[in-house]
């Protein structure tokens, strides 16, 4: 059965660490990084990348349009 796998790329410098994508992610992929970007924000990153199915929920709620989403169909 074909399984969907995804990945997101967060623009670290643009992210303001608002946490909305983390909450919106249905598979708990995202978290806020312990590190901060050059504005001092804990930017979002894929903490559990293996869970990502590329659903685009995170990019949908992102106020700063800093998330790009990729998705592939892969054999299980």
């Amino acid at each position, binding site marked *: 059965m074909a399984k969907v*796998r995804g990945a997101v790329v967060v623009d670290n*410098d643009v992210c303001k660490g608002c946490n909305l994508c983390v*909450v919106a992610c249905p598979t708990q992929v995202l978290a806020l990084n312990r590190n901060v970007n050059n504005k001092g924000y804990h930017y979002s990153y894929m903490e559990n990348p*293996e869970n990502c199915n590329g659903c685009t929920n995170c990019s*949908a709620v992102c106020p700063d349009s*800093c998330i790009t*989403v*990729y998705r592939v169909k892969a054999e299980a």
Partner: protein
Amino acid sequence: MSVLTDRINEIIKPENLVYAKSPLLNDDLMHYCPGCSHGVVHRLIAEVIEEMGIQEQTIGVSPVGCAVFAYNYIDIDWQEAAHGRAPAVATGIKRVMPEKYVFSYQGDGDLAAIGTAETFHAVNRGENIVMIFINNAIYGMTGGQMAPTTLVGQITSTTPHGRDVDLNGYPLRITELLAQLPGAAYVTRQSVQTPGAVRKTKKAIRKAFEIQAKKIGTAFVEVVSTCSSGWKLSPVDSNKWMEENMFPQYPLGDLKDTGRADAELYRIKAK
């Protein structure tokens, strides 16, 4: 770890791209606070304009308020209006260039307080424009003062003990009032706190622009929004507060979708 990195890199390829920010949104860092709804609505407008292929025909009108700098982010032609006057400015643009798409973008102070007259009369004339209304129940830019849409009991910097109806009157449901006007073609209230809500709002904005092309009256989209800085809550808690407190006062959904009224209903019988 490197195996995982390899797997991720395999996915991150142009052919697998499912979402990237619209090229109409430029790389200028938005000045909005973390979690601000403005950013989402800006993106949706950019996406709609891009998807409809109307970049060269669209003129935006930005307000006074946090969104004054909307013109910095969406790469179309813009006019920046005086406080509350965006519907008049949009009227001026649209009347002399009826073939263009014109939209105004205003907050609650701009649209529902100082610009109430301009708002009502633009809609009542059935101006063929799109009006986007960001309602976060507070004045964000000036530091969190009471807005006409501030809820009873809500604490702001000018209602430090909570909005009191004896002193300040009631939250203004201006969208309900506008829906009564015969010039309104489409009036809806949406939100952007969840992926589903965002997709609905995008559909509403798209519909509003399509209505403009049909020239059947004003298309008005309210987006119930958050202001985490003004509300002094985290963005995530702001969304919760909005769902619990704002939605009962400002229920989501379409308020009107009939096109502007038939003039015959209003015509005098004899001269």
